[in-house]
């Protein structure tokens, strides 16, 4: 963004700002605030489609806490979130460092290529990778075979132990380039003179990165970690398209995510009340994890 023009006095023109904001206020009241209030009510009802509802108190939550499928979905989603933070983000950071360390004209080309999977929606990615993971003919097994001599017949999406790795691998293909863009932007805004000073003081490449560069970009790192966790907990479309024959569940529910579970009980089985309860659980997890991360990162020193 270009420099702000400071405004000694700003302008009051009666109704104009309210007219300009009216669509936002109207839409938010109808499609965010009202449903939010309704979500709080709905979670205590059992519904059969939108037409009929019966009050069940906290039974929805009691059911969730006793349902092994829900725990399976929670577990899968947590594994995915951990992989996003501990596998995908370090890879993104590594690639952004590689891109940033050279200033050749290839830089924008690589950036463009590595980012390009983000143009493809999750459903389309799922459709494509569902075929790429096919045993014998799929590109991934053919590559494994060419590299190691093993793996041509390996089932991925049919093997409970390999469903999650397949989903993580697919997500890597998409999102490594996405978070790389954020890291790259952060790296470019790090004060070069600080790094130079550290180098003159005798720090090696790694020390400069760990003690100067990384702390300087900690806000962006925190932002990317939190958005990745939030995104991970809302994962839904990718497994749905990767595992079409089982509606995204996969063998032994190995590919089921919490939002997949919500979709199942709320829209396939028609219990919007139970679906709302799942929504609250997910919202609670996201909030707790985000707050924890903000605390761990030093409790917002200057922001």
């Amino acid at each position, binding site marked *: 963004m270009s420099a702000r023009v400071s405004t000694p006095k*700003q302008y009051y023109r009666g109704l104009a700002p309210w007219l300009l904001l009216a669509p936002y206020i109207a839409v938010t009241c109808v499609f965010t605030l009202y449903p939010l209030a309704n979500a709080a009510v709905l979670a205590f009802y059992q519904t059969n489609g939108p037409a009929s509802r019966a009050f069940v108190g906290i039974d929805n939550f009691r059911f969730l806490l006793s349902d092994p499928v829900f725990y399976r979905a929670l577990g899968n989603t947590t594994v995915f979130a951990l992989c996003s933070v501990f596998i995908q983000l370090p890879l993104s950071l590594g690639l952004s460092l590689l891109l940033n360390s050279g200033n050749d004209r290839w830089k924008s080309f690589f950036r463009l290529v590595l980012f390009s999977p983000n143009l493809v929606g999750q459903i389309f990615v799922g459709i494509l990778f569902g075929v790429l993971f096919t045993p014998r003919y799929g590109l991934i097994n053919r590559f494994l075979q060419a590299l190691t001599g093993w793996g041509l017949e390996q089932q991925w999406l049919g093997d409970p132990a390999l469903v999650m790795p397949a989903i993580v691998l697919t997500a890597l293909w998409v999102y490594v380039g996405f978070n790389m863009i954020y890291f790259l932007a952060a790296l470019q805004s790090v004060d070069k003179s600080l790094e130079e000073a550290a180098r003159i003081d005798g720090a090696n490449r790694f020390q400069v990165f760990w003690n100067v560069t990384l702390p300087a970009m900690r806000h962006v790192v925190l932002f990317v970690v939190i958005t990745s966790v939030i995104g991970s907990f809302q994962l839904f479309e990718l497994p749905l398209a990767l595992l079409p024959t089982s509606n995204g569940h996969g063998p032994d529910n190995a590919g089921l995510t919490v939002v997949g579970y919500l979709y199942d009980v*709320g829209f396939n089985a028609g219990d919007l009340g139970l679906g709302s309860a799942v929504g609250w659980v997910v919202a609670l997890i996201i909030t707790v994890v985000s707050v924890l991360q903000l605390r761990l990162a030093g409790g917002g020193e200057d922001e």
Partner: protein
Amino acid sequence: MRLGPIHWLLLGFFGVFAALYARSPKNPRLALRFLRFGVLVGASTAVLAPFVWLVAAAFKDKAYLNEFVFFPPPSAWSSKTVNLDNFRTLFAGDATIQGTVYFWQYVLNSVFLATTTTLVQLVFCSAAGYALAKFEFRGKRALMTFMLVSMMIPGVLLFAPVYELMVTLHLVDTFTGLILPGIVTAYGAFLFRQACLAVPNEMLDAGRIDGCSELRIYFTLVMPLVRPMSAAFCLVTFLGAWNSFFGPSVFLHSQGQLTLPVILNRYIGVYTNQYGVFLAGTLLAIIPPAVLFFALEKEFISGLTSGSVKG
């Protein structure tokens, strides 16, 4: 095990790296640059290979789908191996209770939904952003705080109650029901607020002295000035709407209303043994976003990161 081309490539790569390193171990700049370039080329190949494979699968005849890894070699290249059969099947039409629905219909639905959402959001988000940037009014601070907080409400929480609301409002299975909740977002409003802060007040004053109405000032003075921001915003919004799945799959029921992500996801089950057909559809579905992206790449990347790095 016999060594294949991949192994020779890897051996060659590390061989060159070792040779470069051995030449000047004290100052291995050239070797490191070579290594860096090699890793980036490797990563780019991994990213591009599925795209190339997708194009190949879409054009290969169904009898030869599994025959060649990518395209057939020139010697086997003929209209028997590489043709438009997958696309012909795709465009042949689906028989439904409402009559035959052709693939064009889904394309049109997607184009209509994505462009309408984008244009409507552009108008309302920029209007809201302008109001937040250039006007003082009572309750502004409270409103902005509320908007920031509202961005943190996870979408999953609202799926069930919004669906119920749509049923009550009779908006299920209509495009209106899909477009209406998303005509303006807090995120978009904040992006435009940032851009509008840079518009000089003197200019707005000049407009006012010349007798422009506030709306006219907004359309003729402010909008042109925030154009770079608008390009990025439109692209992000278009991509989101074009690729959106949850909403359309839940709210749309009639076959003639479906969008590309919904119908292609269904086609996986329909064309189980001819995956070339739904891959041909997928290929078509990723072309419009790709064209827009290459046209607006610079604006897009800067718009994407403007909120996080400076914000």
